[in-house]
C-alpha cells in the first residue's frame, strides 16, 4: 500500500485542507443562521470570473478573485434590499452574473490557463508555497475575527434588532462577516476549488444544527464535522483513486443524510 505521508504534495494538501476546514464553519455558521447559505455559491462563482479576469489582464488571479468576490457580496447586500421579502433572488442573480462573466472572459485567455474545470474543482494536489502561506494567514485572520466578534455575532444571528438596540454596530459587523466570506471563498476557490469551499461553508454547519442545542455547541460540532469529512475525504480519495474535492463534499452529504435519518425530529 502507498504510504500517504511520504509525498510532500500530500502533506501540503493535508495541511491546507486542515486550515480551511477549520475556518470555513466559523464563517459558515453566522451565514447559515442569517438564512444566507447560498452566498458561498454566489461568491465562489464570482471568484471564478475574477480568476478569469486576473489571468486575462495578467495580474495574480487570486487578487482578481478577491476583488470580484467583494463586489459580489456588496451587490448581494444591495440587491437584497431591493427585493424585500424575496431577498434570496439577489444571490441567484449575482451567481448568474458570476457564471456569465466566467464563460465570456475565459474565452479570451491565451496560453491555455483557461481551464475552468481546474478552477471549479481546485488543485489541492498542487499547492505552491505561496498558496500555503496565504491560506495560513487567511485562516489566522478568520479565526481571530471569529474569536473577537463571537458575542456580537451570536447576538446578531439571534435577533438583529435587539442587538442593534443594545448598541452593537450591526451593520459594521455584518459587513466584516461578508468581507471575510468574500476573501475566504475567493482564496479557497483557487486552492481547493469553488465547489469544495461553498460546500464546506454550509454542510458541516447544517449537520451540526441537526443535533446540537446551543450556538457554541453548533460551532464546535461543525468544526469537528468539517475536519472529519475533509481529512477522511482526503484519505479515501488517495486510497480509492478519486478526485479529492468531490469526495470530501460527497462524504459530508452522506454523513448529513445519515444524521438526519437517525436523529428524531425536534
Amino acid at each position, binding site marked *: 500500500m502507498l504510504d500517504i505521508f511520504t509525498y510532500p504534495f500530500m502533506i501540503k494538501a493535508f495541511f491546507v485542507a486542515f486550515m480551511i476546514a477549520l475556518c470555513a464553519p466559523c464563517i459558515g455558521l453566522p451565514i447559515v443562521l442569517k438564512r444566507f447559505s447560498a452566498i458561498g455559491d454566489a461568491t465562489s462563482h464570482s471568484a471564478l470570473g475574477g480568476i478569469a479576469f486576473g489571468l486575462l489582464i495578467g495580474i495574480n488571479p487570486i487578487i482578481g478573485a478577491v476583488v470580484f468576490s467583494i463586489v459580489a457580496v456588496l451587490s448581494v447586500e444591495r440587491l437584497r434590499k431591493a427585493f424585500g421579502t424575496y431577498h434570496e433572488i439577489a444571490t441567484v442573480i449575482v451567481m448568474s452574473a458570476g457564471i456569465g462573466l466566467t464563460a465570456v472572459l475565459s474565452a479570451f485567455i*491565451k496560453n491555455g490557463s483557461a481551464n475552468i474545470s481546474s478552477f471549479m*474543482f481546485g488543485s489541492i494536489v*498542487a499547492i505552491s508555497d505561496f498558496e500555503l502561506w496565504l491560506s495560513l494567514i487567511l485562516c489566522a485572520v478568520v479565526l481571530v475575527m471569529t474569536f473577537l466578534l463571537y458575542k456580537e455575532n451570536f447576538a446578531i444571528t439571534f435577533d438583529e434588532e435587539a442587538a442593534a438596540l443594545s448598541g452593537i454596530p450591526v451593520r459594521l459587523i455584518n459587513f466584516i462577516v461578508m468581507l471575510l466570506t468574500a476573501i475566504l471563498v475567493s482564496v479557497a476557490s483557487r486552492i481547493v476549488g469553488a465547489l469544495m469551499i461553498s460546500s464546506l461553508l454550509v454542510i458541516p454547519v447544517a449537520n451540526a444544527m441537526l443535533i446540537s442545542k446551543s450556538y457554541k455547541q453548533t460551532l464546535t460540532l461543525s468544526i469537528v464535522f468539517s475536519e472529519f469529512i475533509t481529512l477522511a475525504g482526503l484519505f479515501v480519495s488517495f486510497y*480509492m483513486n478519486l478526485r*479529492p474535492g468531490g469526495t470530501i463534499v460527497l462524504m459530508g452529504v452522506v454523513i448529513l443524510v445519515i444524521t438526519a435519518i437517525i436523529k428524531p425530529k425536534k
Partner: protein
Amino acid sequence: MKKISIFILAVLQLFLVTACKTQPTENGKLQVYTSFYAMYDFAKQIGGDKADVYLLCPAGQEPHDFEPTAQDIAKLSDADIFIYNGMGMEHWTDSVTASLGGDVVKVKTTDNIKLNKFTAGDPHVWLNPDNAYIQLKSIADAFKEKDPANKNYYEKNLKENKEKIQRLIADLETAKNMFSSHRIVVSHYAYKHLCHMLDISQYAVNTSDNSGEPTPSRMAEIEDYIKENNIKYIFTEPLSTSDIMKTIAEDTGCEILVLDPFEGNAENKDYFKVMYENIAALTEALN
C-alpha cells in the same frame, strides 16, 4: 453542455447566415479555414501566398477545450476549404461539418493515416513526420481540386516540404540512436506517435484531453515512477494548464523541460522549428 452550445450556435448560425451573408474577399485567393494551429501551419506551408488561411482556435488556446463562436461558424460556411484533424482532436468538428453546406470542401487530414496497436486512439498523429506528410498531402490534394489553376504551385510546395520532412526523419533517427534512457514523463498522453517512432514509452500526468487534475493517488504513482526509474527531467508543454508539473518537480528533484505537441503556440513557430526544439529537449533528457 458542449452539445447544447453547439446546437445553439448552429441555430444562431442559420440566422446570421441568412441575415447577413458575408462575402469572401474576392481577391481570387482560396479561403481556407483551419481548426487549430498545426492544421493552420500545414495549410500555410501548402497554400503559400495563393491562399488566405484562417485559424479558428486562436494560437495559444488549448484546442481540446476550444468552442467556436457563432461568427466562426458563419465565416466557415462561406469558406472554400475547411481543414481539420479529426480523431477526437477537436470535439466540435463532427456537428459543425455535418451542418456545413456542400460547397465547403472538408478535409479530415487523418483519413489516410494508418494506425497500429501502439498508436491507435491518439489524435496527435503529426508528431510522427511520416504522418505529417500524409496530412500535408491531403491538404495539397484539396487545394489542387478547388484551385486547379495553381496546381503546380501547390505541388512544388508539397515537394519542398517532403524534402524537409525527410531531413527531419533522418535527424530524429540520429537522435534516437543516442538515447540511453527510454522513458519520458509528460503532462498529457499526446505522444503515442512520436514515442512509437523513437522507441520510447510515455507516462502522462493527465489523460489525453489535457484537462482536469490527477487524483492524489495518481500523483503518488507518478512520483514513485520517477524515483524508481531515476528520471531526471519531466516534460511540460506550452499550453499546460496547472502547477501539477511544478509540484512533481519540487517533490522529486526533477527538472522541467518543454515538449511541444504543436497543438497551438503563441509565437508563430512552424512545424519544423517545433520538432527540432523537441529533438533538442528529448536529447537533453534521455542522454
